[in-house]
């Protein structure tokens, strides 16, 4: 287990982490029993073995921050203050559930109090949505951080990449947790992507990333806390890959027979709750009495919550027709401004709408010489392996992007509110080809530095299409015959009958 270095937790916080992980597990164990009693209406997805990821990451957030959970992040919902009854009633499709039975599982949200965006089943879509949440929070001066999770499987979607690209270009205060639980339904990670660490995907967007042992709740918390703090200071976005294991099938119907037995055994020995119990005991943070006290409290609470859910009615059928549109004043939409509106209103918001050289770093010698961060030595560090034992470093930094000058801005709401495009204010240290003179300069023109002199493996210029127009007439057929005629030069007609009389 990770020894705490900088972020020292209080005893209460250590016990909180245990409480939420155990609450998460016991809640899900109860739901498995309810599923077997046919009291769960649809599917049931287990986060057994992944509790440390949901709890450790969400615990690093503040009340004002926003999350969007995935199906296996029930622990995060609990940390955000969602009562267990909401999760029971959602799964049991009850009228008392947050969606009143319109959707199930963890598909519900809370815009006003807990700041939770509901997920949808299509993976990856939450990433651009939470990027937008982060951008809006910055715009309104709220100094919030938005966080969401994606599986190893979901990291292959287009929405994942579009969202990360936008988050990076906007420098949004957004944290993405890649929850690598080794399996996308029945497909192992190695059959999805030919790279060892999904954290490497951050480097492609200039997003600093880290790799964490996902079964070590303190390590997960620490990594998340650091990422959240960085984002709040205006140095987002951040990416964290947590390595963990899905200990059940995709859902209850799936016995996961495709998972080798040895793999289950390996990860069972690294169960996050068992490991954390040991850690608490060894560090004398608790004793047996405290543990049984917390466990008993969880049982008590869940008894009440489960009974509430089981006693709740199903929704009235007429509800199906309601709520498609937000009309007739059902919701009041009002932004919570934490900065002066005048800052974003003319004349104060007016700017000179031009691109400047500093916006165009491709016009530098660094770019010509193959810059764009490719030589960043930090990338070489992106070779951390999956946690093999408890003694290996639990957090491995990887691929720290070249720090944008925005990093020097102190972490104030005003600095966060600075428009992203203005953030890259300083010029790069490398000398730049003088604008307006570079391409005309004779020495530069002839030098191999000149991009025009690079061939990029293309064919010699003499063979380009432009040099031989007569061979490439697009209005003629392959043998200089106009289209629309057959080989005899006659227009195409119907296919004549062959000797067998077939058409």
């Amino acid at each position, binding site marked *: 287990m990770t020894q705490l270095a900088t972020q020292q937790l209080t005893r209460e916080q250590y016990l909180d982490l245990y409480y939420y992980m155990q609450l998460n597990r016991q809640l899900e164990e109860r739901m498995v029993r309810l599923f077997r009693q046919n009291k769960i209406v649809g599917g049931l997805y287990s986060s057994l073995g992944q509790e440390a990821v949901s709890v450790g990451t969400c615990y690093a957030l503040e009340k004002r921050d926003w999350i969007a959970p995935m199906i296996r992040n029930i622990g995060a919902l609990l940390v955000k203050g969602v009562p267990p009854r909401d999760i029971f009633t959602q799964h049991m499709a009850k009228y008392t559930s947050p969606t009143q039975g319109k959707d199930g599982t963890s598909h519900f949200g809370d815009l006003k109090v807990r700041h939770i965006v509901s997920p949808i089943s299509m993976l990856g879509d939450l990433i651009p949505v939470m990027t937008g949440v982060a*951008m809006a929070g910055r715009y309104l001066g709220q100094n919030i951080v938005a966080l969401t999770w994606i599986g190893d499987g979901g990291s292959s979607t287009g929405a994942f990449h579009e969202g990360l690209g936008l988050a990076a270009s906007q420098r949004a205060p957004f944290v993405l947790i890649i929850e690598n639980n080794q399996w996308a339904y029945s497909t192992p990670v190695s059959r999805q992507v030919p790279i060892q660490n999904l954290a490497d995907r951050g480097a492609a967007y200039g997003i600093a990333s880290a790799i964490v042992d996902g079964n070590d709740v303190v390590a997960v918390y620490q990594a998340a806390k650091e990422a959240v703090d960085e984002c709040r200071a205006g140095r987002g976005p951040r990416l964290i890959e947590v390595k963990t294991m899905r200990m059940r099938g995709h859902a209850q119907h799936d016995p996961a027979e495709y998972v080798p037995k040895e793999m289950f055994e390996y990860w069972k020995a690294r169960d996050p709750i068992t490991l954390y119990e040991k850690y608490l005991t060894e560090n004398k943070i608790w004793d047996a009495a405290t543990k049984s006290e917390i466990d008993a409290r969880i049982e008590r609470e869940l008894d009440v919550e489960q009974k509430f859910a089981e006693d709740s009615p199903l929704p009235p059928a007429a509800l199906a027709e309601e709520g*498609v549109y937000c009309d007739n004043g059902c919701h009041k939409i009002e932004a919570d401004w934490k900065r002066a509106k005048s800052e974003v209103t003319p004349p104060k918001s007016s*700017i000179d709408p031009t691109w400047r050289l500093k916006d165009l770093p491709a016009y530098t010698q660094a770019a010509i010489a193959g810059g764009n961060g490719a030589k960043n030595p930090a990338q070489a560090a992106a070779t951390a392996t999956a946690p093999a034992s408890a003694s290996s470093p639990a957090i491995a930094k990887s691929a720290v992007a070249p720090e944008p000058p925005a990093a020097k801005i102190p972490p104030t709401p005003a600095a966060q509110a600075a428009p992203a495009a203005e953030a890259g204010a300083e010029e790069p240290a490398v000398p730049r080809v003088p604008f307006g003179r570079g391409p005309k300069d004779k020495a530069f023109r002839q030098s191999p530095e000149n991009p025009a002199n690079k061939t990029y493996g293309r064919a010699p210029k003499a063979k380009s299409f432009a040099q031989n127009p007569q061979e490439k007439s697009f209005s003629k057929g392959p043998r200089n015959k106009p289209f629309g005629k057959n080989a005899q030069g006659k227009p195409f007609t119907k296919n004549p009958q062959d000797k067998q009389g077939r058409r």
Partner: protein
Amino acid sequence: MSHTAPNLSSKTVPTSGPITMVDAIRQAMFEEMERDPAVVAIGEDIGVYGGAFKVTDGLLAKFGRERVIETPIAETAIIGAACGMSFLGLRPVAEMQFIDFIACCFNQVTNFVAKSHYLWGAPVPMVIRGPSGGGVHGGPFHSANPEMYFVHTPGLKVIYPSTPSDAKGLLKSAIRDNNPVLFFEHKYLYRRLKEEMPPGDYTVPIGKAIVRREGRDLTIVSYAAMVHTALEAAVQLAKEGIEAEVIDLRTLLPLDKETILASVKKTNKLLVVHEDTRTGGIAGEIAALVFEGAFEDLDGPVARVTALDTPVPYSPPLEERFLPNTEKVVAAARELAKY
């Protein structure tokens, strides 16, 4: 650091005299962004360049980079981010450079944006706007009318105006609406007609059709560019003694059933004209509505003039064959009038 480019985009909007649909939409954007700092614009090339059709020209100069957000070419990210912004009470207006590209973010629009309010009570007050429609030889990927995918999606509202003043008034209503609204701008109409704007901060209500021409013999229901085709046809028909009533739907979802039914009950004949393809076009839905609500009043079959069931072809003679035109509308109306 000296500037590298001339001041590309700091134009203001004309304040008096007749203006084009492009300027009417720009005016709506300027006025709404001035009125409410929660309104932001997001899309590709909408800032320095002012948008592919210059609809957002001048916005960046006035409102700055925080409110005129230029994005990578990533439609799913644009819609997703706009949706996320709306959860915090902003009212983003997202531009599709061509509305054809909305296909790239279909999932985000239909599964996330459209369903949020119904499923978990989260209103999504955002607008998705973009140039649509054919007649300008844009080819199969720059001429589409994809409105019916979204008319078939509960939770969205779909607007498709035919005049500059309607475009301005409806866009303002769309921005102020608490629901996700798709706003189609027919690019054939962008600069072909001019109109004086009504004075002041006026809006046009969503979900209300308008009778563009009164008539007693038959009803022509249409929207967007085809309204003008229908009106031309009505002039020709009048010379033959056939008085056509022309209804401009303006909003496709929710559909103004009352106006359609009232007109059909008066004229007893219905012709629907649209530029969208035939199968699954809104003509089928309107026909069903009339059968349900005015069957006894009909004196003839419900007729329709639509585009062909093909992609939009590129070459002028092919596209002309594809699209409805005045002659096709007149011919269909003449047949219908015989009943």
